[in-house]
């Protein structure tokens, strides 16, 4: 069967795929969870393009504590870093 399936490469794809492919959405969701409770939705600045139908979420009381903001920023930074490395990888040849 080894003639037909490169188990090593497959294992790497599955492992790294789970870490990145499931981890990035999870980090994104975690960031949103950390931010939930701010007075405005985090993506407010993109308003114009999402169309008029969108009503902002309920205006809630407190700003989240600093550690949550920092945590959310870290999560977003990892997500953006992953996307950037994806683009760099594509630009550098994209297939080995």
């Amino acid at each position, binding site marked *: 069967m080894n003639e037909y399936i490169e188990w090593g490469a497959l294992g*790497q794809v*599955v492992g790294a795929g789970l870490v990145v492919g*499931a981890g990035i959405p999870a980090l994104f969701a975690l960031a949103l969870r950390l931010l*939930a409770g701010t007075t405005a939705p985090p993506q407010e600045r993109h308003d114009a393009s999402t*169309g008029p139908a969108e009503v902002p*979420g309920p205006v809630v009381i407190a700003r989240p504590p600093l550690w949550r903001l920092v945590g959310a920023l870290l999560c977003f930074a990892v997500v953006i870093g992953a*996307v950037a490395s994806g683009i760099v990888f594509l630009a550098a*040849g994209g297939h080995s």
Partner: protein
Amino acid sequence: MGGVTETLLLVLVVVTALAFDFTNGFHDTGNAMATSIATRALRPRTAVLLSAVLNMAGAFLSLAVAATIAKGLVDAGAISLEVVFAGLVGGIVWNLVTWLFGLPSSSSHALVGGVVGSVLAAAGTEGVLWTGVVAKVLVPALLAPVVAIGVAATGTYLVARLTRGIDDKVTGRAFRWGQVGSASLVSLAHGTNDAQKSMGIILLALITAGAVPADSSVPFWVIFSCAFFMALGTYLGGWRIIRTLGKGLVEIDSRQGMAAETSSAAVILLSSYFGFSLSTTHVATGSIMGSGVGMPGATVRWGVAGRMLSAWALTLPAAGIVGAACYGIQHGVGGLLGTLLVLALLVGAATAIWVASRRRPVNHTNVNEQWDERHDGGLRRSVTAPDAAAPDVTTADAAGTDAPSEDEIHARRANALAYTTDRPSDEEQR
């Protein structure tokens, strides 16, 4: 005379390669953009425009072209311009047939199938490297959806757990942006990978015909025309396939869409990084199914998935039969006349398929209509004159035919997760 024939054949191969490139873009728009269109993160035409621009940019981004077609799958010595031409025709015909039925299937498998078929007809079974075909085409086709379903289901489940209790209106907006970002990455990856295939074919044809030296890099006009035709195909959008992927497989919300597209982008990029290439189409489709598997309360229409899987299984033999038949006709009639006859047949078949598609057109106005599995995913209304009917359909849409669908989905999912409404206030008190 021989020189003229050779030149004409070369021109035909180049034109057919660009036509294949066009169907490739056309066929694969849905891989990146179907979920964004279904969740209304982007308006349908904005989505295909974005995808087209990114495909075009992707084609210029990386120029590491492998000047080989079907490397490791067929004996390189068996490849001639006629074989390539017949293979391309096989690929195009299969792409068009699957498009007519709204079935996403791998464009590169169609091309490989066509070429393998025409090599079989030209050189017999010795011309095909069967181990390579099994290891590089068949096995990855079985594994890709499994891997993608696993990754996307895990991602979707984590996202659903982490966002439970947060207002959908807040998360929806953020996830739609995340979704557009990840879908853009998929489009870019498609542009860098798939435009290269057509560039490789054209370069190979030019080298074979002696039009450029053997160590030539890809001429600029080749890069530009491949990028352009792929982008054009993408922009015209395979709405039938977008509809199947976005509405047919799973009822999708923006959290699932984001998880699915991120999973697609990650698996596609990682698989090429580790040298275990998986088809973009198979990964994207698997990811969308996975987003239905992982989301509590969501269902996957396995009937649609089954039809899709059978199309994947048929891709190689079907495109191969067309490729072999084309080579047979070409060779039987002989010379340039045979090639022209095959070209005429291709144009005829393409026209017939296009006419058939007009009976139940799917376009940007009705791509998001509710999926009705009993009628084979048929549309409730047929749009006979798309332009004239457009305002009508839009009004019907605005009147709420499926506008509340995402809210309904959210409500159902919320129940499935059994979250209590006091959950957010818990969070605030901390």
